[in-house]
């Protein structure tokens, strides 16, 4: 293992039902850098994020996950979070009756009103309009994604897994999300972007291409961009996970 890595995925094998979703996947993430994991639909990107976070249903795997050189395999989601790992969902959860203020405060290091407002401003949402609203179905998917990101900003984590940060986001809001990602990076946070969008990929320092739960290529964004942009030619995967 390189001295530099903050997260190391070692030979990860995970089956869901009959299917092998992650297939001997290994990769290393460096501290303070923005990494991207790209791959077509169904490649196993969300599964990888869910496994790193330790969500229910993703705990039974072979291989190991090391965070700051120690295994987190036996840790629950909240224990991993207290170590400094957090995640932004592809489709954020909805909460009836829970206000944006309480939601952001829940995970915040500094729970002051000012800090909550600042986080909302960073993701381009007006605190006056949003703080007292509920994080429920009356918010659009894009608004909920930005509120989720605001809550992550106040948490000051070491590693953020961001699953499809651009899905359901318009062009203007996407700029705000990119600003927030840059803000996190400037604070020394490590970021793992999960995406199949080249616009998001461009924001990364390094990238991994996965397909059928396997690592196909890794390296500079330019290199992965070429490979991915050509529809993964010369990769001959049909992107259908193996049936065990």
């Amino acid at each position, binding site marked *: 293992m390189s001295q530099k890595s903050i997260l190391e995925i070692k030979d990860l094998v995970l089956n869901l039902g009959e299917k092998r979703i992650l297939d001997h996947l290994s990769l290393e993430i460096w501290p303070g850098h923005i990494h991207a994991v790209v791959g077509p639909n169904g490649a196993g990107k969300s599964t990888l994020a869910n496994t790193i976070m330790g969500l229910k249903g993703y705990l039974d795997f072979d291989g190991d996950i090391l965070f700051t050189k120690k295994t987190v395999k036996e840790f629950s989601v909240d224990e991993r979070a207290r170590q400094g790992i957090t995640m932004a969902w592809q489709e954020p959860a*909805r909460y009836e009756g*829970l206000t944006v203020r309480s939601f952001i405060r829940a995970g915040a290091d500094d729970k002051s009103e000012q800090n909550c407002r600042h986080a909302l401003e960073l993701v381009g949402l007006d605190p006056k309009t949003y703080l007292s609203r509920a994080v429920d179905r009356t918010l659009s998917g894009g608004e909920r994604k930005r509120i989720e990101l605001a809550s992550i900003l106040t948490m000051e984590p070491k590693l953020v897994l961001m699953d499809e940060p651009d899905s359901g986001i318009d062009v203007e809001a996407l700029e705000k999300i990119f600003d927030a990602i840059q803000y996190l990076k400037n604070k020394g946070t490590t970021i793992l972007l999960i995406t199949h969008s080249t616009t998001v990929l461009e924001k990364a320092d390094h990238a991994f291409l996965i397909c059928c739960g396997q690592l196909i290529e890794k390296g500079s964004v330019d290199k992965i961009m070429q490979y991915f942009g050509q529809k993964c030619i010369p990769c001959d995967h049909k992107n259908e996970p193996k049936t065990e």
Partner: protein
Amino acid sequence: MNRDQLINALYESIGEACVTDPGIAHIEIHANKVLGVHLVEGLEIEADELKDGIRATLVVKKNTKIDQPVRICFGLMQKTGIQKIDMNIRLEENARVAIMASCTFPNAEEIVHTMDADIDIGKNAEYIYLERHVHGTEGGINVVPKAKIHLHEGAKFRTDFELIKGRCGKIDIDYEADCERNSYLDMVARISGRADDRILINERATLRGDGAHGVLRTSIAVRDRAKAEIKNTLVATAPNARGHVDCKEVVQGEAIANAIPIVEVHHPKAHVTHEASIGSVDSKQLETLMSRGLSEDEATDLIIEGLLSPEGQPF
């Protein structure tokens, strides 16, 4: 503790400051003692001490509109005891008042609190009653609120019962409302139970006047081994009566909840609907909060607090 110290302790236990604004009427009752009363124009309160409680009569005079909500604080600071409240509330014709009542039993280990209310809301009068309970963490409390409510023609009554902080212990609510022509009734209860808490709710309303409206809404969260039994009955016997019964329950762990909404319509031009849902906290909601560092218990608390908050109600 002397009188002032007790008043302070009561308010402190609910996280509020004593009322000092002379424009706000208030009354503080500890065990069977009235510690303080402050009235405003048009509001009359008479209270007699009983052996283990208080008998009180509250009257809002005809055409009196009391602008600022009246504060009532009941409670017992000790661990054991009985507090019986006998309340007679009368709003005369065209009167209006809102009451914010707090019931605080922060150290309860073996306490019985009963409330027997007789509420008469005069023609075109408007009454809002919010009751918030703050209990300790032991669960040694038995709360028995009973109310008989009469709404005269054109009267409006809205009540909201909240028991979310601390253990609810055993609670047994029994409310009965009788609604005359063009009156409007809205009864809400929001209660959270844990450990071996027991929640029993029995609410009945009869819409007997032409054009009477009634809504009974209950939101309950139970976890651990807590049990909830909710029976809400709405009967409509007059033309153009409109009613709705809504029961929302969230169940975690080994808790058990049942909800029985009963609607009865005795007139072809009356319309009453009902809705009941029993669900659990979903794993994405939990895991999102846990990924911010909250324990599963803390995350559950927050989700339930939201579900039971006034904002979480389907108004």
